């Protein structure tokens, strides 16, 4: 009996400090994740909400109009500066203005301030001084705004008609030209209709009075949209927000990635991912079947399995290097010298493109598909296989009629995980075929319809490029947030689907039977 030790023994109360620090680690990680998602959502979606425009009168009498962006404490520590987005880059030379809060005399929200979206110079903010129709008639005052709105609607409809005419009538006719007399006359008639439409769209301009007194004359064909944010009700703002989100998803980038949308990047990403999954699924499933069903389960197979698993951890840039060296320079160069000699020295397949990018990413995600399919195959109890064989099936029949259907959810999980990974990988694409701004999408109406040698745009690369290689990063930031939010949402949805599938699998078949 050790009396001394029992006297000194102090039973610990509670769990101790360590347990709380561990709990704190979990909380900190969750907080970081939530903060990141919240930042992306607020800044990304908030960009499309039409914010009110302020008219600021400074102490020295100057006026400026703009949207308030943020406030930053001054470096010297005495006061706060506020950033306004004033637009009017062609008038002021810059679309931002920093204003010391202490120098502000009055701030108001006049309801007649107009925000214009223009084709070439971005936003313009000011009061609508006058609207001149194509006929030369000049309208001023409140009627100018209604006239402007109706004319913009008309222009929108005319633009749609012109685009439809071009795509559905003129281009096919021009492609068919070459010896057909009727096509020639139809083409001339179509061109005539096009000229009529363009004449109907021409003319008209509006005079904008900027806050500092200058006036800006904007031809109507430069105007993409006009709104009066201070006069909008909440319902109007909601509609404008929805329209902004839709335009973001359906238009291409404009004005050096500071305006417009990301449709070509969405299209490029989806196309590449689809091509990649077509390439990776058969080969991944084949390799998994070989490893699990056909190969002799000895030491070599175990080593190969470990090697395949480790390849999932190899950095993606190494796959990019492999793709560049073997696919682009090696195979692409050979293809060029065999089939596209007339186009040399400008490379067709000897440079990055859709095909090489899909192949590289297929190689990158192959281990993911192999591991997931193998997990599914290992879950199938051996009794099923033995039962099929006992009833007289050959091994091929056992595979195709018993094993593969049961492993189908696992294969699907693997493909979904592969797609989720490929959608987010940017590093290998930088080497094998993504473009900052692709002039054409890889799918169009000319034979062979799918152009595998063209470069494409990618959501992830778009984020990198817009954030780092843009001229005015400040102006591009909201769109980068929105693109990042879109990418994260897509990947989260894909991963959630894979997680549900895997959960469904594990409850269906139970523990792994073979390792």
């Amino acid at each position, binding site marked *: 009996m050790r009396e001394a030790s029992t006297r000194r023994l102090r039973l610990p109360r*509670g*769990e*101790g400090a360590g*347990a*709380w620090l561990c*709990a*704190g*680690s*979990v*909380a*900190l990680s*969750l*907080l970081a*994740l939530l903060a990141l998602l919240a930042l*992306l959502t607020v800044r990304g979606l908030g960009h499309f909400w039409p914010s009110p425009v302020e008219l600021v009168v400074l102490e020295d009498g100057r006026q400026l109009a703009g949207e308030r962006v943020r406030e930053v404490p001054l470096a010297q520590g005495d006061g706060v500066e506020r950033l306004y987005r004033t637009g009017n880059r062609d008038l002021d030379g810059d679309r931002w203005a920093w204003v010391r809060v202490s120098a502000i005399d009055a701030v108001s929200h006049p309801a007649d301030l107009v925000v214009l979206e223009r084709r070439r110079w971005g936003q313009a903010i000011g009061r609508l001084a006058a609207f001149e129709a194509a006929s030369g008639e000049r309208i001023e005052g409140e009627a100018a705004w209604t006239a402007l709105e109706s004319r913009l609607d008309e222009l929108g409809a005319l633009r749609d008609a012109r685009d439809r005419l071009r795509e559905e009538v003129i281009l096919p006719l021009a492609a068919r030209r070459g010896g057909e007399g009727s096509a020639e006359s139809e083409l001339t008639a179509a061109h005539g209709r096009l000229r009529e439409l363009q004449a109907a769209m021409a003319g008209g301009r509006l005079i904008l009075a900027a806050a500092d007194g200058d006036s800006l004359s904007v031809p109507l064909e430069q105007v993409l949209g006009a709104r009066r944010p201070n006069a909008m009700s909440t319902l109007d703002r909601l509609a404008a927000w929805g329209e902004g989100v839709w335009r973001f998803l359906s238009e291409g980038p404009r004005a050096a990635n500071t305006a417009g949308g990301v449709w070509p990047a969405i299209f490029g990403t989806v196309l590449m991912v689809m091509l990649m999954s077509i390439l990776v699924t058969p*080969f991944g499933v084949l*390799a998994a*079947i*070989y*490893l699990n069903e*056909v*190969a002799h389960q000895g030491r070599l197979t175990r080593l*190969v399995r*470990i*090697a395949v*698993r*480790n*390849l999932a*951890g*190899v*950095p993606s*840039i*190494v*796959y*990019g*290097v*492999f793709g*560049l*060296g*073997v696919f682009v320079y090696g195979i692409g160069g050979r293809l060029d010298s065999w089939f596209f000699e007339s186009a040399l020295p400008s490379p067709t397949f000897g440079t990055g493109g859709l095909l090489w990018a899909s192949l590289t990413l297929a*190689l990158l995600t*192959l281990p993911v598909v192999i591991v997931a399919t193998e997990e599914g195959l290992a879950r199938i109890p051996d009794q099923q296989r033995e039962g099929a064989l006992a009833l007289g099936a*050959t091994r*091929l029949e056992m595979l195709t009629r018993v094993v593969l259907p049961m492993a189908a959810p696992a294969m699907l999980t693997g493909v979904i995980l592969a797609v*989720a*990974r490929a959608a*987010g990988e*940017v*590093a290998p694409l930088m*080497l094998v075929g993504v473009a900052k701004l692709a002039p054409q999408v890889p799918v169009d109406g000319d034979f062979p319809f799918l152009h595998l040698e063209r470069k494409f745009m990618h959501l992830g690369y778009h*984020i*990198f490029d817009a954030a*780092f290689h843009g001229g005015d*990063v400040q102006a591009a930031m909201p769109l980068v947030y929105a693109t990042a939010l879109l*990418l*994260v949402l897509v*990947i*989260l949805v894909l*991963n959630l689907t894979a*997680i549900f599938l895997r959960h469904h699998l594990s409850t269906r078949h139970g523990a792994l039977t073979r390792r």
Partner: protein
Amino acid sequence: MLDSPPPTAVRRRLRQGRDRLATALITAGGIGVIAALLAIGIFLAVEVVPLFWPSGGSSAISPEALWGGGEGAGEAADEASRHRWAPTASLTPGEAPRISLAPLAWGTLEAAAWALAIAVPLALGAAAHSSLFMSRRLRSRLKPTLELMEALPGVVVGFVAGLVLAPWVERHLAEVFACLVLLVPGLLLAGGLRSRLSARWREALPLGWAGLWLVPWLVLVLAASVWLAPWLEALAFDGDLRRFLELHLGLDIAVRNALIVGAAMGFAVMPSIYALAEDALSGVPASLAEGAQALGATRWQTLWKVVLPAASPGIFSAVMIGAGRAVGETMIVLMASGNAALMTLNPLDGLRSLAATIAIELPEAGPGGVHYQLLLLAALALFVFTFLVNTLAELVRTRLRRRYQRLGGGS
């Protein structure tokens, strides 16, 4: 009974023939796919060979040039110009090309070290809490959430780190310092305050769910740190942390530096380490932990003295896999590190990693040139490193599994 006629000899031979053909095709396909995967290493090795054993007229590159590099003709170059990576810089005649991979390797290791310094405590703490203290229901929801965290693309994390976090940290150094200093006391305060609450409150805020209800508490603690920061700065650093760092420690502060990269990569790598560490900790046979608790140990003592040592190989392999991922991460380093090839110990300076260099410079390097081969050498180094680290980790885990079976007696 039979609803189809018995198979004739011809039909049987056809089926068997198809089976054999299919097996041959599957074998060929499987081996082909696996060979294609392994060809990556072979390709890199083959392309790098001409660097050291050139076939044409060019001279071989000595390994000293790759590590020391940049020696002037005949003169002893000073330390600053020795380790320089500038393969495309124009050279005066007689000057050796500056192709030292040392600053890039240093940058890679520095970024990975800071990432692990942040990720490992977080991940191990989270894994310990999750396997031993957390309620089962919360744990089943937490694991997929942290898996989703792993799926976040590096571009997005790098963008937020480089363009949002870095400028904010540079402007608010004192607040960041205050948050770091007050974080641990704040957590301990939570435990202390909770033990003083009434029994009903203590039941409502159990340790098993602490991972969730500590989140709002953490927000409070961080807000309080930000509010207290000016006072703390005046107390400890004579009112200006930045000047203090520059004057007394000689630290130059770059906006995008190693600490930002470490924090961002730590955030990205933490879920992988967490998943593997948690598997290792949960895989320890229950009899060990229960035996310790039956002898009077608290859960924390069990964890520290029994479970952790038993699972240490698994944790080691988890950290190694995390290191492999940290070394290979490209986009985060590319966007948040400033891409300056420096070799300093200052964590507030920029860095440049091997992977980022490859991503930036390879498209412009002409195939077959020395620059191209050097970048391929860097890629080979990355490949070999991560492959070895992952293989080692996998072997350690296999041994751990066998050890658990021996310890637990098959429980």
